[in-house]
């Protein structure tokens, strides 16, 4: 089964995704890291949520694929608070195959209202198990 990223070209956009994190979700996130520090909202939580939505839209997680998260860049320009509504919009920056392995890079821009508050760049490596 072909996943959508296999045919997507650079410039293809994903989302927009509406993201909001409650205080309880933030605490669950910290717990899932094994942390007991629940005092603040890390910018990474929004990247995590956007990444999951990207994974679902691009179809890159399945038993026919070995998908590896190879790298992550995150930049934020404003603090993020619980309950804020943030919009994430992804764009495929590169998508190449070398020796039957796909290398893709997706950039996500995060905005609050009309203000950009951050970006993330996710590098993914995909190997198809059953061709």
């Amino acid at each position, binding site marked *: 089964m072909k996943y959508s990223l296999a045919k997507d070209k650079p410039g293809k956009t994903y989302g927009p995704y509406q993201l909001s994190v409650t205080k309880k*979700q933030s605490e*669950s*996130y*910290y*717990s*899932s*890291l*094994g*942390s007991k*520090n629940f005092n*603040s*909202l*890390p*910018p*990474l939580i929004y*990247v*995590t*949520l956007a*990444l*999951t939505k990207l*994974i*679902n839209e691009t179809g890159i*997680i399945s*038993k026919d694929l*070995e*998908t*590896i*998260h*190879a*790298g*992550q*860049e*995150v*930049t*934020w*320009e*404003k*603090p*993020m608070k619980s309950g804020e509504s943030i919009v994430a919009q992804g764009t495929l920056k590169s998508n190449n195959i070398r020796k039957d392995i796909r290398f893709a890079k997706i950039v996500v821009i995060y905005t609050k209202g009309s203000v950009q508050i951050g970006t993330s760049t996710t*590098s993914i490596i995909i190997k198809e*198990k059953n061709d």
Partner: protein
Amino acid sequence: MIETIYKEGDKLVSIKRKITQDLINCYANVSGDHNPIHINKEYAKSTEFGARIAHGMLNLGIVSEMLQESFQEDWKFEGQIKTKFTAPVYSGEVISTYGTIISVQPSTLIPSITEIQCSIGCKKENGSIVIEGSALLKVRT
């Protein structure tokens, strides 16, 4: 030079943590990332990794926690992380984060902001590096 409490060469607060399968399952539920390579023992056996591995973002979350512990409120306002995931972390392995302040300089654009550049990473008990990269913190003084 703007005065800050941060100095070149300072080590960041290291965090050591065992990445249990319970933690990986919990992270899968919170993030919604149910890639079978993280949670399905039989599937993971069939991959080149041979066993279940932690999400890269779980490990990076612990690196971010180190930055937060080290810089407290200063960490939240403006910053940047650039990392590569260089090796898998298997269920049950123990990882430790590490980081060092490389430079402390006033921003060339906004002098009231101090830019703090750090090398950051995460390694296993056997010394193999699982995350390596850099962080840039912008502190208002």
